[in-house]
């Protein structure tokens, strides 16, 4: 069985973001990382791989710099690496990215897909369900834990009422939320092995994906509105005012 893990390279959550011309200035991003929810997906797949009998294929769609992320995945145990080279990912809309990723999954022959529930940069959250739709596969989102038995999977997901346990069989797509385990650290031996793993690089056209034009146009970007400055009260005489504000404006008492 093959598990394709879909990964996106995003600005590290600790990296400073510079906005230029209404867009994030990618050249100013000092550190790029695997999107954190994709890390949960990767770790879950690695644990299943350790139990045996599974090939883990790391797949990404993105610019040349994203290749490093695939090598990082190889260093912790990914068996094969697929890179669909798209220099400007932000020029594509979600459905185009889904079409590319679904085609890449088909190319790998994997019938199970793991991915993060959303990417840490765009937060669209559409990749898992979108890829599942194109592959005609079942889809479970917000997965926090997963267990496998043959080709059937049991996934735990959080709902408003508590946790749900869902059983599905392949083909299936799981979109992971933060679970109980963090992505393992690579060790020296894994890193030394990683350089021997070849990244299969291809274009959307190689996969037979007709990109066409995007049906989405973005009218504008704007930063979130600035929060009004905090108010400060001193002395016992202000108690009544503070209580009034907490009750009537903040609605906390």
């Amino acid at each position: 069985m093959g598990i394709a893990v879909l990964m996106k390279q995003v600005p590290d959550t600790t990296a400073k973001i510079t906005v230029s011309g209404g867009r994030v200035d990618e050249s100013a991003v000092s550190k790029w990382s695997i999107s954190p929810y994709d890390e949960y997906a990767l770790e879950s797949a690695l644990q299943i791989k350790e139990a045996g009998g599974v090939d883990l294929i790391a797949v990404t769609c993105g610019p040349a710099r994203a290749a490093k992320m695939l090598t990082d995945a190889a260093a912790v145990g990914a068996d094969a690496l697929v890179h669909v080279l798209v220099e400007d990912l932000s020029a594509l809309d979600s459905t185009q990215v889904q079409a590319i990723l679904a085609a890449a999954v088909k190319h790998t022959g994997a019938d199970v897909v793991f991915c993060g529930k959303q990417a840490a940069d765009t937060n669209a959250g559409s990749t898992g369900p979108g890829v599942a739709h194109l592959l005609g596969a079942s889809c479970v989102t917000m997965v926090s834990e997963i267990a496998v038995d043959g080709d059937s999977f049991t996934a735990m997901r959080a709902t408003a009422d508590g946790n749900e346990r869902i059983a599905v069989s392949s083909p299936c797509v799981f979109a992971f939320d933060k679970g109980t385990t963090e992505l393992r650290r690579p060790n020296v031996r894994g890193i030394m092995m990683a350089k021997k793993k070849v990244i299969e690089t291809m274009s959307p056209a190689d996969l037979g994906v007709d990109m066409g034009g995007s049906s989405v146009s973005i009218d504008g970007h704007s930063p979130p509105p600035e929060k009004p400055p905090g108010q400060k009260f001193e002395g016992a005489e202000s108690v009544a005012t503070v209580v009034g504000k907490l009750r009537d404006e903040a609605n906390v008492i």
Partner: protein
Amino acid sequence: MAYEALDFYDVDSLLTDEERMIRDAVRDWVEENVIPNIEKACRDEVFPDQWRVDLGEMGVLGAPLKGYGCPGLSYMAYGLICQELERGDSGVRSFASVQGSLAMYPIWDFGSEEQKNHYLPKMHAGEWIGCFGLTEPDYGSNPGDMITRAEDKGDHYLLNGAKMWITNGTIADLAIVWAKLDGVIRGFIVEKDDSGFTAPEMTGKHSLKASVTSELVFQDCRIPKDRILPGVEGLKGPFSCLNNARYGISWGAVGAAQSCFSSAKEYALSRIQFDHPIASFQLVQNKLAWMLREITKGQLLAYHLGKKKDDGTWTSEQISLAKMNNVDMALEIARMARDIHGANGILDEYPIMRHMANLESVKTYEGTHDIHNLILGHHITGIQAFRREL
């Protein structure tokens, strides 16, 4: 904010992908595990056991050795590991240096096949800790006159003497002990449960507080005959270990200096005096520029020495220069960073005083600053200035 190492001359671009990945993995580990916990470890004067486990799992212990479970990493990558560990704390780098360069290396280079197979895989994995006994209470810079003796008793060796300033001693499972057998310095593997061997911890240190420092005491310590290192005689044995450790220190010191520089730069930009950040004042900029200059030179020394280590074209004098220079510059940078931090610089909220106190030890151990100067003096003039009749 993510830590961004100073790299003014883009040394990063000279590294291989593999070297960068290893550097980043160790950097992340230090960021997540050492930096948040180091002040407590220093206050409690312990080397957290979890760090031993983690370093073993990461595979960085004795990483440049090849075979016997060890990966055979480049010395460049090993240097980068030391740099990142010492950005956290010199005590963590000391742990790794002693394990890899001083305890594993002599077994790997001078040990028997049986010794290599028995000890090295477990030491690489961090399951067994090693230490290195050369320095004695009365013989520091002059180890050749050591008084620790081994006697051949037919079916075993009997060790008598004492070693001092031994990193990892009390927590070690085995010690590489250098002692004179019939007047010739030989290496012996002493295990922690050998009769007549004790390793009391030294207390009262103001430096390397998160590192275990011990005495090793041998009172009719009886060890089996197969625990002598067969492959070396004389000071060449311990000195070849020290060459590797000193090489690692030349990188480690850059890490400590980077930590001080990074803190000083951040502090100078945020500390307001006379209505402006102190970073806007010329005297502070002069200090920061000096730090940048010295760190950049130190990086280039370490990088080039790493190339020579990997090519096999290095000399011990070149290692002396890099160890001496880089520790010296790191210590000066720590002092200058303390100055920029003003009174805040003495608090454990900042890494400055800890690095400064650590570097005082690093300046002295593995060949003192002055001894390295004498090694270079000997190299220049052909006249050794260590030993004389007065």
